[in-house]
């Protein structure tokens, strides 16, 4: 079943490839194929979720590919990767729909890129081999580079794409060296074999630093945050949605699967360092968020702050901390794309600008939009009834067990996130209607459906988190205590 998740987007892109981009009918056909492919993938992942056995922490739906002599790999999912796969298959059709009507050139390659990206993203979460994890971790870079350069906006999009590419590549080189070291010592890069092997504390420390550098760039953590807000600001809307929704979760998954699982002693040893970096990232990025003038950059910086709380939860060495981190990363995967649709889709499509100074009084002509934007702003802040609240609270409760003062400092992020969220919402929604703008229509039915599709899981899972917690409890317990 997992192999279907990997193959179906490729089949969709092969179906789109021969279609000529010479008429509106063909363009609609391509869009329909891409959307249908991603929805079929979503359906399969939901079937996987329904069939998933929550009473075991073992990998399930394992598929071994060994038909070719030079290529042999296993794929499978456990409770942790299941939800990241679900998130990926959920966010991909949302991303395709967000740019459904406003990409006019090279639509074919735009859609093919996103379908290939879907396969690569799912592969990151389902492979059971460290080297393959590295390959797919890196493989999204060229595709995203092309998406930002060709379909992005802004004069500096080439610089932004280069920064994104080079930052991640440079960090990942250390991860490659670490993987080669593990292979030379263990004799394999299979997850299960590595988790059974004993690595000395001295080796663990060096390997940990190498992996941490790669994941810290992807998260991103201070002082390696320079690429994110630029990549988000200059990327097309669908690219921003994927970046915020799933690409940042590669790092979260990497921390859990590699650092906590394979290098537990070093993770414990470097706990204070991680706490320091996370707190500094949280405070610095939150303060930087408050002074942003570009709405997309503001949402991007707020992503950095939320991911730092996720890191605090992961390295808390408690079940509730890790479960909270997973919940918060999933919640961030719903809310951040929604905010990008609000500012980068709804507002930007109508006004042609993302500069906060030009936008004021939107409630006058777009009341439905401001209601939805308000709800997502509150969710971003971590208001109760949202999944963000549960994730943030559990993460902070988890790190409280380790270090109450770090947890208290982490809680300042809640206050700061309220500052920039309320500032953004208040500034662009209320007051006298901006003289720089003309009246616009409220959100369309398509935009409304997109936002509601993201709101429903945020609120429903915020009220019923056990839907997720039942599945992840056993694998998280195994991660910590096995």
């Amino acid at each position, binding site marked *: 079943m997992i192999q279907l998740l990997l193959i179906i987007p490729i089949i969709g892109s092969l179906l789109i490839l021969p279609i000529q981009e010479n008429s509106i009918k063909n363009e609609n056909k391509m869009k329909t194929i891409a959307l249908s492919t991603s929805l079929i993938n979503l359906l399969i992942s939901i079937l996987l979720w329904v069939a998933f056995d929550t009473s075991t922490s073992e990998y399930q739906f394992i598929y071994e590919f060994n038909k070719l002599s030079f290529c042999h790999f296993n794929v499978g999912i456990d409770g942790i990767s299941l939800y990241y796969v679900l998130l990926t298959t959920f966010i991909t059709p949302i991303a395709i729909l967000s740019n459904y009507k406003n990409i006019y050139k090279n639509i074919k390659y735009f859609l093919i890129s996103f379908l290939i990206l879907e396969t690569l993203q799912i592969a990151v979460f389902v492979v059971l081999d460290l080297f393959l994890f590295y390959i797919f971790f890196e493989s999204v870079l060229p595709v995203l580079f092309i998406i930002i350069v060709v379909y992005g906006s802004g004069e500096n999009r080439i610089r932004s794409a280069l920064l994104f590419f080079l930052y991640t590549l440079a960090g990942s080189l250390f991860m490659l060296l670490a993987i080669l070291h593990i292979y030379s010592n263990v004799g394999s890069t299979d997850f299960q074999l590595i988790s059974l092997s004993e690595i000395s504390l001295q080796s663990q420390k060096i390997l940990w630093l190498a992996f941490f550098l790669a994941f810290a760039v992807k998260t991103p953590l201070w002082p390696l945050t320079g690429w994110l807000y630029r990549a988000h600001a200059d990327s097309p809307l669908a690219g921003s949605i994927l970046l915020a929704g799933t690409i940042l979760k590669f790092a979260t998954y990497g921390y859990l699967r590699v650092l906590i699982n394979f290098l537990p002693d070093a993770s414990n040893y470097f706990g204070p360092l991680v706490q*320091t*970096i996370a707190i500094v990232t949280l405070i610095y990025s939150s303060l930087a968020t408050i002074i942003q003038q570009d709405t997309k950059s503001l949402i991007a910086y707020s992503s950095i702050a939320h991911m730092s709380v996720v890191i605090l939860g992961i390295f808390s060495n408690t079940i509730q901390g890790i479960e909270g981190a997973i919940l918060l990363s999933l919640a961030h995967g719903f809310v951040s794309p929604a905010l990008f649709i609000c500012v980068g889709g709804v507002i*930007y499509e109508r006004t042609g600008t993302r500069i906060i100074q030009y936008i004021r009084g939107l409630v006058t002509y777009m009341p439905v939009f401001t209601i939805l934007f308000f709800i997502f702003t509150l969710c971003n802040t971590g208001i109760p009834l949202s999944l963000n609240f549960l994730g943030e609270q559990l993460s902070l409760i988890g790190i409280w067990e380790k270090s109450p003062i770090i947890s208290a400092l982490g809680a300042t992020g809640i206050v700061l996130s309220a500052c920039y969220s309320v500032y953004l919402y208040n500034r662009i929604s209320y007051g006298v209607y901006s003289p720089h*703008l003309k009246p616009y229509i409220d959100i369309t039915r398509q935009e409304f459906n997109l936002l509601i599709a993201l709101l429903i899981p945020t609120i429903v899972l915020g009220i019923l988190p056990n839907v997720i917690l039942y599945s992840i409890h056993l694998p998280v317990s195994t991660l910590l205590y096995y």
Partner: protein
Amino acid sequence: MAGHGYTKLDPAVERWNAMRENAYKHFRFTSRTAWQSFAGLILFPGAIYWLSSNQDTKWSWSGKLKNESLARISPPAESSD
């Protein structure tokens, strides 16, 4: 792709944002920026690291009773003689 909407641009706003975007190109070390850099890059992270390494796994709040120490490793009981 650029948005397709209409915004009446204000040259003052454009100049302000261009200044903000390109501020990093004009950075140079003065006494003020040197102090800010030191505080932001070394002092504050150093203080947080000192705090986190000092306080890491030092306290435990779980299952504590009245008059019981919050320290993770409880101090030895006083002898009664």
